[in-house]
């Protein structure tokens, strides 16, 4: 040990060599990538799986709101008088028989007459309305000294098919157009006419095309089949018919009758709808009590809500940030005076502001403008309080003093030096402000305090309040908007919490 040290002290000169002679030495550049504040936050955010999933779901919902109103097969304004409160229906899925998207409506205690009626529609139009027999019950009653057993069925019918055939009156031209369309597509719209006289004078039920008794019960032949009673009376025929004929027609059936300058015919409503609109009546999420297609309406309503919420948060953020910055930076008397004003604004309940603004401003700046003002009036306070707190925290730190010593102006100090430190907090609160704006907007439209339907087409709140009245008969009209809305709010809150944890790791898990 001793010897070695001595050796080290006497190392011969030639053993030394220059490590570097030619170039000046610089600091070595880092091989690793530098990681800024945001990249750091992103890494922490990605670790929070539920927030990441929430972010993806939000992206999907936003995409829905943007794309669906454009690509929806049936637009919201295209309302049909017959298909009101119809359940969701997609034909391809309905035919699989999975019990979803089959447009099914449940009917309680249907007797034999009604069952035959449904069967008749199925046989004539080819669209069997019966989806499923859910249950059968027997009732024994004594009739003229004999026990008579009657069966009652609980069953569901396809709401799109069970309309069956309806009477419609056409001009001669229109009638010919339908025939041309039939020839072209091979889809039968017009069905042979049935004279009321041959079905016991029943003239308000176009779905009966077979022999019936006076009560409308089908009189079956001995094999249990219907006996068709289509009219062959050429004397009353309205317009010549030279298109697809139904099976079993030898060319003698008439397809329309004269009605003072026009013709009346029996048309299969499902196919007639296809003829009129150019697409089949497939309401993917059903329709509401106004006949609006929910699939499209949810997108339209959500689109407004999202744009409105983003606009409101952007405005509130700007006002709040500037206000809070001034408050926090100058402090003292300025802070106190501005604080009193903020107190005043936050003291007025949101519902009161909205109503007063609607009553006073709506005529001048429009409903939406007044609505926006109401949100801005109360919304910026939270943001300004946040920014003020951040300013109090940072304004007496060394870097600020340094900048001030170098002669930075107040404006520069506020927005170049202190403000960037508050950005994390601001982004986080923005993500939590958006769902709260959406919620209050929906509440206001739901309550009918603000009516934005003229401007935005629809809103989730309007859809929900329309559905509320017909909740028991068509729960789907309430269900789908609710699901979309609840999902949106849950995901926004999860996403916001994830952002907050990512930007302020010290408060992880503490929720306020």
């Amino acid at each position, binding site marked *: 040990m001793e010897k070695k040290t001595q050796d080290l002290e006497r190392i011969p000169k030639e053993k030394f060599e220059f490590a570097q002679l030619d170039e000046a030495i610089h600091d070595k550049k880092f091989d690793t990538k530098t990681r800024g504040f945001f990249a750091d936050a992103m890494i922490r955010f990605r670790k929070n799986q539920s927030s990441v999933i929430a972010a993806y779901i939000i992206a999907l919902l936003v995409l829905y709101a943007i794309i669906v109103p454009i690509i929806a097969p049936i637009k919201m304004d295209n309302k049909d008088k017959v298909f009101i409160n119809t359940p969701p229906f997609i034909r391809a899925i309905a035919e699989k028989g999975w019990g979803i998207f089959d447009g099914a409506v449940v009917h309680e205690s249907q007797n034999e007459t009604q069952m035959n009626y449904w069967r008749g529609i199925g046989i004539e139009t080819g669209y069997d309305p019966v989806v499923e027999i859910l249950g059968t019950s027997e009732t024994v009653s004594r009739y003229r000294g004999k026990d008579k057993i009657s069966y009652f069925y609980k069953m569901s019918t396809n709401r799109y098919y069970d309309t069956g055939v309806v009477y419609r009156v056409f001009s001669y031209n229109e009638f010919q157009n339908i025939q041309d369309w039939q020839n072209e597509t091979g889809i039968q719209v017009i069905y042979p006419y049935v004279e009321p006289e041959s079905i016991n004078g029943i003239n308000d039920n176009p779905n009966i095309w077979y022999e019936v008794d006076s009560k409308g019960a089908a009189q079956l032949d001995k094999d249990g089949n219907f006996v068709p009673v289509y009219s062959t009376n050429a004397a009353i025929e309205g317009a010549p018919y030279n298109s697809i004929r139904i099976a079993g027609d030898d060319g003698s059936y008439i397809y329309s009758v004269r009605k003072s300058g026009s013709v009346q015919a029996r048309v299969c409503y499902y196919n007639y709808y296809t003829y009129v609109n150019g697409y089949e009546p497939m309401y993917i999420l059903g329709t509401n009590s106004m006949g609006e297609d929910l699939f499209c309406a949810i997108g339209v309503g959500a689109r407004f809500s999202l744009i409105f919420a983003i606009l409101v948060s952007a405005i509130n953020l700007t006002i709040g940030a500037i206000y809070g910055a001034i408050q926090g930076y100058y402090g003292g008397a300025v802070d106190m005076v501005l604080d*009193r004003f903020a107190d005043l604004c936050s003291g007025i309940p949101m*519902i009161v502001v909205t109503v007063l603004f609607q009553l006073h401003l709506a005529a001048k700046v429009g409903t939406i403008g007044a609505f926006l003002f109401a949100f801005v009036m109360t919304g910026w306070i939270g943001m300004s309080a946040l920014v003020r707190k951040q300013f109090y925290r940072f304004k007496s730190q060394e870097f600020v003093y340094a900048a001030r010593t170098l002669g930075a102006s107040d404006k520069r100090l506020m927005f170049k030096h202190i403000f960037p430190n508050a950005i994390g907090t601001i982004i986080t609160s923005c993500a939590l402000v958006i769902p709260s704006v959406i*919620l209050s907007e929906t509440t206001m439209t739901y309550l*009918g305090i603000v009516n934005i339907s003229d401007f935005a087409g629809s809103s989730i709140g309007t859809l929900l309040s329309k559905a509320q009245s017909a*909740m028991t008969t068509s729960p789907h009209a309430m269900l789908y908007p609710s699901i979309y809305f609840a999902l949106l709010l849950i995901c926004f809150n999860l996403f916001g919490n994830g952002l907050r944890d990512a930007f302020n790791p010290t408060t992880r898990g503490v929720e306020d």
Partner: protein
Amino acid sequence: MGKYAVKRILLMLMTLFIITFMCFVLIRMLPLANLPLGDPHSDVILARREAAGYNKPYLVQFGIFLKNIFTKGDWGVSDVLYFGQEVSAVFVSKLPATIIVNLYSILLSIPIGIILGILAAIKKNSWIDHTISTLTMVCISVPSFVYAFVIQYFLSYKLGLFPFLMKAGTDWFSWKMFVSMLPAVLSLSMGVIAGFTRTTRAELTEVLTSEFMLLARTKGLTKTQATVRHAMKNCMVVVLPSIFGEFVGIMSGSLIIEKIFSIPGVGQLYLNSINGRDYPMFTMLVVFYTTVGLAASIVVDISYGFIDPRIRMGSKK
């Protein structure tokens, strides 16, 4: 502390005064409701309007308005909805329904919320905690009309457990009334329960990890003793004020729930007064809502100081 409370209350009164004045002027600027000709009530209302100074400057009108309230408790007469009736009488008749429904909901929420919160905090990071936290998250986010729909459709319609709407009548404490209130109470409670759970859990987890808990354990207290005697007390410092705040808030009620379940309460009255343009009624309700909102925030702030003397309110930052 007392000085701080007085200061806050005075400031609140000032805020309330200014807000009332602004809203009062804004409402008086609106066109008056047309009165049906020949109705004997119309003459009464016209006379009352004259007395309230409807054709005088707004400042004078406001003075008369305040004077009537403080000397006679007179808020004016309803001129559309409850034709010719005293606004304050109608309002008082609507209060019980709102208060009772909200009271039930809070009485239901406090124990459930706090127990769930404690459970989650004690079993932190176990599956119990995760389940409760997730449910809390979901319950807080989902708005009350979605609960109302689920409860009305499944419990009232499909299962037939409850009536659809709240029973009419004023027998507030009868069993039938209680049952008919339950759907509304349940839909109101979900959010409140979730709120209490979240506060309790957040506070308790923080308290449980603090050093005095370790000291308590080293002194020989069992975990239960330490939690109940030391942790709970400290956790309540935050939970209690929020309970007080909720209690003040019960009077304002929920507009949505009252509309859905047709509760004859203040929220319903407010909506009707807007839709019917009954401005005297509207004025009173605006003042009422503002007062409740301000009072709730003040009660929360002041009760912090009274519950925990360590918190020195109003001290300079």
